[in-house]
């Protein structure tokens, strides 16, 4: 982490942005928001940003700042759960596929190819539309899209690692395959996985926002950045803050994650050392 902050100013900027947004999300988790993000206050509709309402209020008199903070919390939760699921399943799949080869590799490769045959957003959209709608199923729908990516990313390095002497030596000492995979192979691919996690998080946030924009994400009235932007699209000239606030925050969140991902890649990936 300190290496990242020292070596990559972009990565450091990403960390700063994410920390600020994490504070926002934490406020919503701890119930410390200035207003209830869902409670409607018709008398205070369309108030412009002020000291009382930092980002103004929307067409139902709800405080936009509180809604944005809660939206960041929801988006982050969905993205983190989705990517965690994809990382665990995908990495295990890639390990087994690359290490066992043979039938396991063929089967996992087949599933990967099928999932890769769908444009990512379309796959998430179709899955989200058939599943019961709540935040968890949205996370699952997004996770399914990213599982094959983690399989592809880990399988290649595992294939070459299993031929390396110390892994062969471990095989010859009679350790079980799972011991070797987890103790000798996995630690050598962690940097690849960490980079992929950061990049996938930014895509997951974008996907979740797109799904809620299309009405297939977190169901209302729970605030979500995508659905806030959808509702604000006809209010742009009445109350521009209803679009600008969630729009700016979703862009910041993705920028932060992208910068972090790029920074991690520059710091951790040995191929990138020196040529920047």
């Amino acid at each position: 982490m300190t290496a990242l902050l020292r070596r990559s100013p972009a990565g450091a900027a990403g960390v700063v942005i994410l920390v600020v947004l994490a504070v926002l999300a934490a406020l919503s988790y701890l119930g410390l928001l200035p207003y209830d993000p869902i409670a409607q206050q018709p008398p205070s509709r369309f108030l412009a940003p002020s000291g009382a309402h930092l980002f103004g209020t929307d067409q139902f008199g709800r405080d936009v700042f509180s809604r944005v903070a809660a939206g960041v919390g929801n988006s982050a939760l969905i993205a983190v759960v989705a990517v965690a699921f994809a990382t665990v399943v995908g990495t295990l799949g890639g390990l087994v596929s690359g290490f066992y080869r043979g039938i396991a590799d063929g089967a996992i490769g087949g599933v990967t190819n099928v999932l890769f045959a769908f444009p990512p957003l379309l796959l998430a959209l179709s899955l989200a539309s058939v599943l019961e709608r709540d935040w968890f199923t949205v996370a699952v729908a997004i996770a399914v899209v990213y599982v094959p990516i983690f399989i592809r990313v880990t399988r290649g390095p595992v294939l070459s690692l299993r031929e390396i002497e110390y892994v062969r030596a471990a095989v010859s000492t009679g350790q079980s395959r799972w011991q070797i995979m987890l103790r000798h192979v996995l630690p050598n691919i962690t940097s690849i996985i960490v980079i992929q996690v950061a990049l996938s998080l930014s895509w997951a946030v974008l996907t979740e926002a797109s799904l809620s924009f299309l009405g297939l994400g977190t169901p209302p009235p729970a605030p979500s950045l995508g659905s806030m932007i959808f509702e604000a699209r006809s209010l742009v000239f009445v109350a521009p803050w209803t679009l600008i606030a969630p729009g700016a925050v979703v862009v910041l969140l993705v920028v932060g994650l992208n910068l972090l991902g790029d920074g991690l890649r520059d710091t951790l990936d040995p191929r990138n050392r020196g040529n920047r």
Partner: protein
Amino acid sequence: MRSFVRSRVVRRVAGTLGTLFGVAVFVFVMLRAIPGNQITANLGTEAAALTPAQQLALERYYGLDQPLVTQFFSWLGNLFTGNFGWSARAQQSVLDLTLRSLPVTFELAVFSIVLALLIGVPLGMLAASRTNSARDAAGQAVSLAGLSIPAFLLATTLLSVFAASFGFNPNGQGFATFLDDPLLNLQQMVLPSLVLGFGIAAPILRTTRAAVLEVRADDFVRTARAKGVPERRLQVRHVLGNALVPIVTMTGLQFGYLLGGAVVVEQIFSVPGIGRQVLLGIQQKEYAVVQSTVLVIALAFVLVNLLTDTLYRIIDPRVRAS
């Protein structure tokens, strides 16, 4: 050698067919996982009022009394004879709907890719021409923006700003195909392809920058420069020519983003393409439409990937030889 190449192609095609079969199974199973069926989708809560006899008759009519495997293969068989299902909403066969919407999305995709290449390749070369300079930073900023601004946000903003400030809202009127009214059609394509093109320009820019930097360090470039090849020709023919392989691959890979992004962008700009067809199908719970359309999109995606793969074998002599 030749037979080896041919067998590789054959294997690639066989693999693709296998994948497509898997895709069909996946789509079929996914839509069967939804609670309810065609009957409840058509009748809504009134389905509960059906007598057992009516229920049975309807199930027989839709083939729902057959085992799942039979249902799957009859659906697949129907697809091959051009029977993609029927859309009650549009009162049209899904095949007709698709034949109308697919060219629209194709047009949008072509414009978007052209725009993306026009933005991404020159900016990528410019960024690579002097690393860690102001122009490099500008290029990085553009690509970061492209990667980070959601298509729906850019589309919503552009739509309202152009409509309100410049009175430019060609998408407010009914959609015109290129054959109906070329001028209106092109106007209607401007903003949607700009949004999609901006999104894909980012990875193309990054790939161009990285590829140009890599090629520029090669010995043959130094040799060409030493032989007195003019700088412009050197950059375009020798450097860009050799950096094309990753750029083409990356462009092909972006097709998936394009088809997914098309769902969002077509919806916002009311462009009646294939993405909007899926979304309408989902919103109206017309699963026959969703099922066949998703399959068509996956087919298009897989074919484009196959094409990219072939194309890159053609442009890269090293791959051709190995």
